[in-house]
């Protein structure tokens, strides 16, 4: 198992290298704003522009730039400096990670806590009103963009612009270490919005899995033992139905840790996603590169974690 994880991690490094090279190519090949022009201000002379280009190393060949980037990253763990704010990219990322992790984990807890009981109940009572509501909810959740849901939530419940000012609105984020209470209330609305888009889909996934496993022979065996229905469902049915659910949670967490761009933007949460969004609008290439790498890293780690978890959840996989 350890050898497997090490091998996967090495492949992950190769993947990160490819991702960063691709980001370079995409940024320079596709037409985008000129970072030098954005920094030089209006009516800058060609000399100023050239000087800025030289400063940012933009006048060197692409391969040389990429080589220098890799050299700094590998030897010093340095991701360069932001064109826009002059701060080191590494510290920008470190500053933003807390918010993204907070947003992601809180939302995961909510959507898992909501979707598991909903999924179980609608699997056990197919076509009941509860089943129909989660079915409808899933349809709405898939169709509705999260930024629209976020704006509606702000319009209804934010304490500054809301019709029913119940919760802190956009831009109210405070780090956990500074003010735990404020951290919790400021994130409640974004958590609920982000969780809403996932909860119904997860409930449907669990429902369909559980409907399938409850028809399995081993569930009949469990009933034949004279076990209580509760135990039959939770220990026998759910145990087998959880595997794909857990897999998907892992993958989605990896994705969100790379930055829930839309949610962070709507609620003005200073996270990785928001940083990425700002960096793109400012053609701030080092920061774009840094946020993309962080996102890729989380996706890779999540995939490895899911595969390891899979082996623990299903003994048949362990052998293969």
């Amino acid at each position, binding site marked *: 198992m350890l050898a497997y994880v090490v091998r996967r991690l090495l492949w992950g490094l190769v993947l990160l290298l490819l991702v960063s090279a691709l980001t370079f190519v995409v940024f320079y090949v596709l037409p985008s704003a000129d970072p030098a022009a954005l920094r030089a201000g209006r009516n800058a002379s060609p000399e100023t522009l050239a000087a800025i280009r030289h400063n940012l190393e933009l006048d060197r060949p692409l391969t040389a730039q990429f080589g220098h980037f890799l050299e700094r990253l590998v030897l010093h763990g340095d991701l360069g400096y932001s064109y826009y704010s002059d701060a080191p990219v590494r510290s920008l990322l470190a500053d933003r990670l807390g918010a993204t992790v907070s947003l992601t984990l809180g939302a995961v807890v909510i959507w898992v806590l909501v979707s598991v009981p909903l999924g179980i109940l609608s699997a056990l009572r197919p076509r009941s009103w509860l089943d129909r509501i989660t079915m409808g909810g899933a349809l709405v959740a898939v169709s509705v963009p999260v930024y629209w849901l976020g704006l509606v939530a702000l319009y209804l419940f934010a304490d500054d612009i809301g019709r029913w000012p119940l919760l802190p609105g956009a831009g109210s984020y405070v780090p956990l270490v500074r003010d735990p209470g404020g951290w919790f209330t400021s994130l409640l609305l974004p958590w609920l919005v982000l969780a809403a888009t996932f909860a119904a889909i997860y409930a449907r996934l669990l429902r369909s899995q559980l409907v399938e496993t409850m028809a399995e*022979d081993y569930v009949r*065996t469990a009933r*034949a*033992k*004279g076990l209580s229905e509760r135990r039959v469902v939770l220990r026998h049915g759910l*145990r087998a139905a959880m595997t794909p659910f857990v897999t998907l949670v892992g993958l989605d967490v990896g994705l969100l840790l790379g930055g829930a761009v839309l949610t962070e933007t709507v609620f003005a949460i200073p996270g990785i996603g928001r940083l990425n969004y700002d960096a793109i609008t400012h053609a701030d290439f080092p920061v774009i590169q840094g946020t993309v790498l962080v996102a890729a890293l989380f996706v890779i780690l999540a995939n490895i974690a899911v595969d390891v978890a899979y082996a623990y959840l*299903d003994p*048949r996989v362990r052998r293969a």
Partner: protein
Amino acid sequence: MSAALTIEDLRVAFATEEGELRAVDGVSLAVARGRTLGLVGESGSGKSVTALAAMGLLPAGARVSGRVLLDGEDVLGAPAERLRALRGAAIAMVFQDPLSALHPLLRVGAQVAEAVRAHAAVSRAAARARSLELLELVGIPEPARRLDAYPHELSGGQRQRALIAIALANEPHVLIADEPTTALDVTVQAQILALLARLRDELGMAMVLISHDLGVVAGAADEIAVVYAGRVVERAPAGELLAAPQHPYTWGLLTSTPRIDAPRGAELVPIPGRPPSLVHPPPGCRFEPRCAYARPAHRRLDPPLEPLAGAEAHEVACLLPEAARGELWRRLAQGASPAEARAAVPLAEDAP
């Protein structure tokens, strides 16, 4: 001896898109402790549904009538909680495919211990000790190691033994074995059947052995009931049924199964056609469309299950005259084809 399990006029129907499907249509059976009843028939004949009805495990949509008496207690109308208390304790079941009947993600020992703890308030350690005892009882090698194994780590025969251990956890009075050997190699089949017979005697259980294979049941059962399209068409003590079978369907089962004592050169004769629809069963004798000896009148007349003239214990549901049946079987047993037998035995065209 009074029967441990008695089934009286059991009827089970399911609603389908085409109409009501009568899976079991008036089945009556009884087994005493220490005895084995063989239930034989094709798939879809209602054997397994009968077993599930006895276990109280029919799906929610099933419409059930009749009586299922377990040690004299009617379990058919019993409340769910009472059924749960009986299931796995007074009556237990061994299922067909041991790989799919065991939970793939739980250790074997945990699955056995769970059956113990479902009916006895014992500690985890005591349940584990009892599980070890049970695995030993069913003859699993290195039982202590197997406790911590997962089902996919056991052989097919060991899995079936583990399932039997689960069924025996609370020493039931009635054990239903539904095709317990179908998924196994022939040599392992014999071992499992011998094991079931030994356990039945040791624990004094009444056993119902369900199989599509008359050969499997022939050696293991004291009494055999042949089921066709939801009904018992013939019932007799095993030796009697094999020596003097009365129903053309039973003849079909016997001549389509390879037998060591068959005459040299005798060909295997498959039963033509398929079992009838249980939504729209034939109006007369249900076997009539596939019967080589049916008369026109048999399309209208539905034969009841009646004892033979000389033998109370041997019952058959057939419209052919008893003398003609004896003649026909005598020829079939000698290796005649159904057409040859039919040509040699005169049967009145219009009368039954």
